[in-house]
């Protein structure tokens, strides 16, 4: 694993900083080791530290009123946690939990905001990184709002039924995502929605279509 300075210089937020600027920022960072299943952020609670993942994986998720968990993203090395709550001073919109042992580098939101005044270059990089996230979210909203993904996933399932006669390949969620032009997490959510709608059942490695006509109807929504 990279050392602290090397790691921080590899984070897009801090790209383009001089060695002196980088040293000043790095001095504010602390290392945090986390165990598998350790929770770093709770939905609805304030978050005061911006974390960057140096190793391991963190799942970012929301929990429904019924207690159902929906993973929104997996944050891998190089990714960050808690920007929203840090920059808008509101509660965290999601929870974050380590799914492997993790090493994080954290900086307090207050320290970071102070440094933005000293090094406006960082503010520019952060705006760029946040804009990129907004762009991805817009694309997600478009897909979800118009139900395009669910419709596409329904079509993919209907086209890949193994007992339909032709020999069909078995598909991973990643492959379905590539076919539907979306993210793997969105396919997972779509499959859950289709299961909740009662048109299919997921039994370990089998997706069992229980209502073919209902699935066909959902496949036609555009």
């Amino acid at each position, binding site marked *: 694993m990279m050392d602290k300075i090397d790691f921080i210089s590899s984070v897009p937020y801090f790209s383009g900083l001089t060695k002196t600027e980088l040293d000043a920022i790095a001095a504010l960072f602390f290392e945090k080791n986390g165990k*598998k299943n350790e929770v770093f952020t709770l939905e609805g609670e304030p978050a005061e530290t911006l974390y960057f993942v140096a190793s*391991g*994986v963190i799942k970012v998720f929301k929990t429904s009123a019924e207690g159902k968990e929906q993973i929104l993203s*997996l944050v*891998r090395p190089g990714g960050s946690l808690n920007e929203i709550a840090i920059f808008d001073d509101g509660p965290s919109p999601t929870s974050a939990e380590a*799914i*492997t*042992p993790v090493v994080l580098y954290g900086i307090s939101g207050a320290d970071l905001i102070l440094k933005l005044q000293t090094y406006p270059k960082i503010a520019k990089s952060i705006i760029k990184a946040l804009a990129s996230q907004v762009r991805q979210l817009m694309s997600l909203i478009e897909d979800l709002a118009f139900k395009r993904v669910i419709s596409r996933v329904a079509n993919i*399932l209907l086209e*890949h*039924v*193994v*007992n*339909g006669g032709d020999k*069909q*390949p*078995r*598909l*991973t*969620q*990643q*492959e379905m995502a590539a076919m539907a032009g979306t993210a*793997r997490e969105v396919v*997972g959510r779509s499959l859950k929605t289709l299961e909740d709608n009662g048109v299919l*059942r*997921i039994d*370990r*490695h*089998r*997706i*069992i*279509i*229980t209502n*073919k006509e209902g699935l066909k109807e959902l496949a036609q929504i555009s």
Partner: protein
Amino acid sequence: MIDVPEIQLEKCDGCGLCVDVCSSQLIMMRESVAVVIKTEGCNWCTLCEAVCATGAIRCPFEIIIE
């Protein structure tokens, strides 16, 4: 058919994340690559596939009509 994730050894970079996320302890590192060590007990959570940055792991679904 054996119901365990498929690992393409030539794509595995040996990061070990799949071992860490597997709650069934079905995967281990052997000679710096991930291997499936049991043929039963996988709950098909697909987290190993989700965390694999090199796309070395596949958890494919069979799609059938009831």
